């Protein structure tokens, strides 16, 4: 699987994404600078990493959503390429409308960083097949604006079409997200945005190992 990571000014999980992808795919991803970079044409997966693109100024992901690289990103998605947006990456994908909804400030108004239990809503996607037979996984979260919001019609549709991949375990919603939603898919099932960090849970640190499944699923899908 060939991968690429977009780097915006203020991205800070780009190296973590790079390491996780290299570890799972065995090949270093292309690191693509937002201003003048190019996503290689044979890229299977583009990762939009976490961080504080443009300092979260104006609105999380808003300025990055208008960066020069976005045109290449949307073209890649239109072609049916895989896209994984984590944390700030999820916010950016919502800003570009590759995914519906928006991420609002956490209900607590505080930044929150902790191990978070998630329920796997469907193991029948390109991003989650490795979790077949597992009800819950634990990923680290670290965000200030993870409170997913969409109108009821959109939420009903996301649920009806099986596009909710991860929910915060009931009673443990850390940010007030609508219907405990932690991660959603695009209509074609090729674009995933999620607040929890699978790239921080690929072994060797405090984050555990549960995130590996996301990348392993992609490797077998691609």
């Amino acid at each position, binding site marked *: 699987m060939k991968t690429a990571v977009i780097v915006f*000014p203020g991205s800070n999980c780009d190296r973590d994404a790079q390491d996780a992808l290299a570890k799972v795919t065995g090949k270093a991803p292309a690191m693509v600078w937002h201003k003048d970079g190019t996503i290689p044409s044979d890229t299977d997966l583009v990762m939009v990493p976490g*961080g504080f693109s443009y300092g*979260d100024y104006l609105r999380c992901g808003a300025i990055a959503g208008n960066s020069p690289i976005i045109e290449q990103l949307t073209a890649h998605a239109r072609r049916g390429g895989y896209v994984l947006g984590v944390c700030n990456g999820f916010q950016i994908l919502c800003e570009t409308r590759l995914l519906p909804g928006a991420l609002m400030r956490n209900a607590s108004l505080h*930044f929150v960083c902790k191990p978070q239990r998630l329920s796997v809503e469907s193991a029948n996607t390109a991003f989650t097949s490795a979790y077949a037979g597992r009800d819950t996984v634990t990923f680290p979260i*670290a965000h200030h604006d993870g409170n997913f919001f969409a109108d009821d019609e959109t939420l009903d549709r996301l649920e009806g079409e099986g596009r909710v991949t991860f929910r915060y375990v009931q009673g443990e919603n850390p940010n007030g997200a609508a219907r405990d939603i932690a991660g959603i898919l695009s209509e074609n099932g090729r674009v995933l945005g999620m607040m929890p960090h699978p790239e*921080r849970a690929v072994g060797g*640190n*405090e*984050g555990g190992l549960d995130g590996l499944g996301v990348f392993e699923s992609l490797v077998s899908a691609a």
Partner: protein
Amino acid sequence: MPDTSAILARLTTTQTAKEGVEHGIKADEWERLVTRLGREPNLVELGIYSVMWSEHCSYKSSRRHLSKFPTKNARVIQGPGENAGVIDIGDGQAAIFKMESHNHPSYIEPYQGAATGVGGILRDVFTMGARPIALVNALRFGDPSHPKTRSLVAGVVAGIGGYGNCVGVPTVAGETQFDAGYNGNILVNAMAVGLADQDKIFYARGATPGNPIFYVGSKTGRDGIHGATMASAEFSEGDEEKRPTVQVGDPFTEKLLIEACLELMATDAIQAIQDMGAAGLTSSSVEMAASGGANGEGIGVVMDLDKVPQREEGMTAYEIMLSESQERMLMVLYPDKIDMAKAIFDKYDLSAEVIGETTDTGHLVLTQFGQVVCDIPVAPLAEDAPNYDRPWIEPPKRAVLDISRFPEPGDYGDVVLKLMSCPDMASKRWIWEQYDRHVMNDTLDSSQSMGNAAIVRIHGTNKALAICSDCNPHYVAADPYEGGKQAVAEAYRNLSSVGATPIAITDNLNFGNPEKPATMGYIVKAIEGMAEACRVLDFPVVSGNVSLYNETDGVAIPPTPVVGGIGLIEDVSKIATLKGAEKDDVLIFVGDTTGQFGASLFAREWLGLKGEDLGSPPPIDLEIEKKHATFVRQLIHDGLVHAVHDVSDGGIACAAAELALASGMGMTVSIEDIGRDKATAMNLFCEASARYLMAVPQSSQAEIVRRGNELSINAGWCGSVQGDYLVFIEEPVKARKVAELPLSRLREAHEGWLPNYMNEVD
């Protein structure tokens, strides 16, 4: 366009002793200044002298005492005197670290004060070529019931998180304490740790004449003018009015600055570099000039201030030189590298301008609007700054606290609950959950597991650094010499408890007004105690910061010399953490419980004693500290233990409680195997030092006891890991339970205090 001739006339007006006083220059210092300069200074020059000779920049009250610290050993590459300390960690790599205070700004404007404290300490580290890999903070607030405390906690924590989270450096450890002594003067000490290749370390020194001076980062505004001077004066009511002297941080720009500087540092473009911290462009240019030259003989600098990128119109030379706008760096480049450097900063949309050049005159020459507004020799500003031998008096000795005067507690479980939920001991989850502890993916252990020290992997290797921050101000207040020793010894124990070899410290000395002989006595004795511990433990001081004048309306803070410790772990598979205890493990106690109750948590929180009545702190035998720590480290290294906790605040009772909470496992502790004082409370809550509590697999017990016997170290069985209760038993034969606490109740008490406090509405 303002009338430049009027501005220039004001800037170049000769100043008098009276204006000197307004700038914090005292009468004798004014004499010194005029003598060195050979004339009276103009306004720009006076402004420059006032910040360079401020306590904050010149260390004029502490310099001669700081020289008592051991600062060298085989691992030290750079000790105090540069932006941060540099330590050899093997394999051609170096750890670069420093701690620094931002106390006064954080009290006036907690969010920005704390945020820019983090920003400043990060710059100290990446200025030297290191990628920052960890942040730590040591916080002290006033009494929780004080009307300002809650909002200060909220603001400081948000500021630290707001900056560190955005910059993308994990905040992995810290300490937070509360005491009425900080009501009017909180302490915000931030530490940054970075990683560099030894052949890519950059210094402020070494610039030679004829090279361009390059300004990069944010534009200069009017914020923070005279911050260094503010940090060198006592506070009084109404000082919130000084808010305009607090800088505003922009972590996004800092992140770009880190990436751009590290990218430039990978080339051979930079001859010398200095961040613009306190006193901004003044101190950075003066320090580079003073330490310039091939042999450090000093050079000159000429700068055209019209070329300095400016945020506001109409700024004067005085304001430009004294601004403490954040996220700025000053470099001396090699002339043929300017275009390449500009291209890198352009990539990150950062301002970058050549604003002057180095000269061989030894003078700092500044021009604005085409006219010279400052021309002064550099040397008197730096090396020749005042260096006082402030009068001091020996701090009074306190009597040993006699515990027999007090009744034994009726219920020891109540005591444990009370101690574990008191403000100093209660879980700080509400704080550290607001910090990104995991970014960079190398955090092996953090505040999350209540550990003795955070463990951060050296990226791409099997090695790690252990990082901690320590100080018990109650001990220092009770006896500054022993308390100073204790702060260093505590860091040494904490690092050893995770299996790391302690290698060096940074310090942050927070005290009151050094012009008062009683306060100066505490400064002198604490430094001497720390120095003694550093010497015996081979634990040199490689960087640090002194924060004096921490007083409000004449009352000093408790003496608080904070120690930031760094240890090296050669193999990450050989570590111990608090969370590692397993069911059916054996508890092993290491050390001797020698009845020490003075200045203890028990005396403060349970007996309600204060000040003098707390008595003297536990004495420290440094040779024993070294011996026991080495013993414990070896056990960890040989894979004989699951979990280790050093015994400190609240004695063995609190150590066991923390071990139980971290692992989520019940523990039964036999008191007679800890100590044999006739007072049960003494055995449970005494704070004698050089002690450890460990959870080990049953198969290790015999070997640990054997090794202890061989080395004449008391190391033996003291209980077991089992069930869901924390239980203390006496007379093991009858197994009388003197306390029995469900873990859930203990957790509720421990976790509940801070969120409940923060969520109360004033």
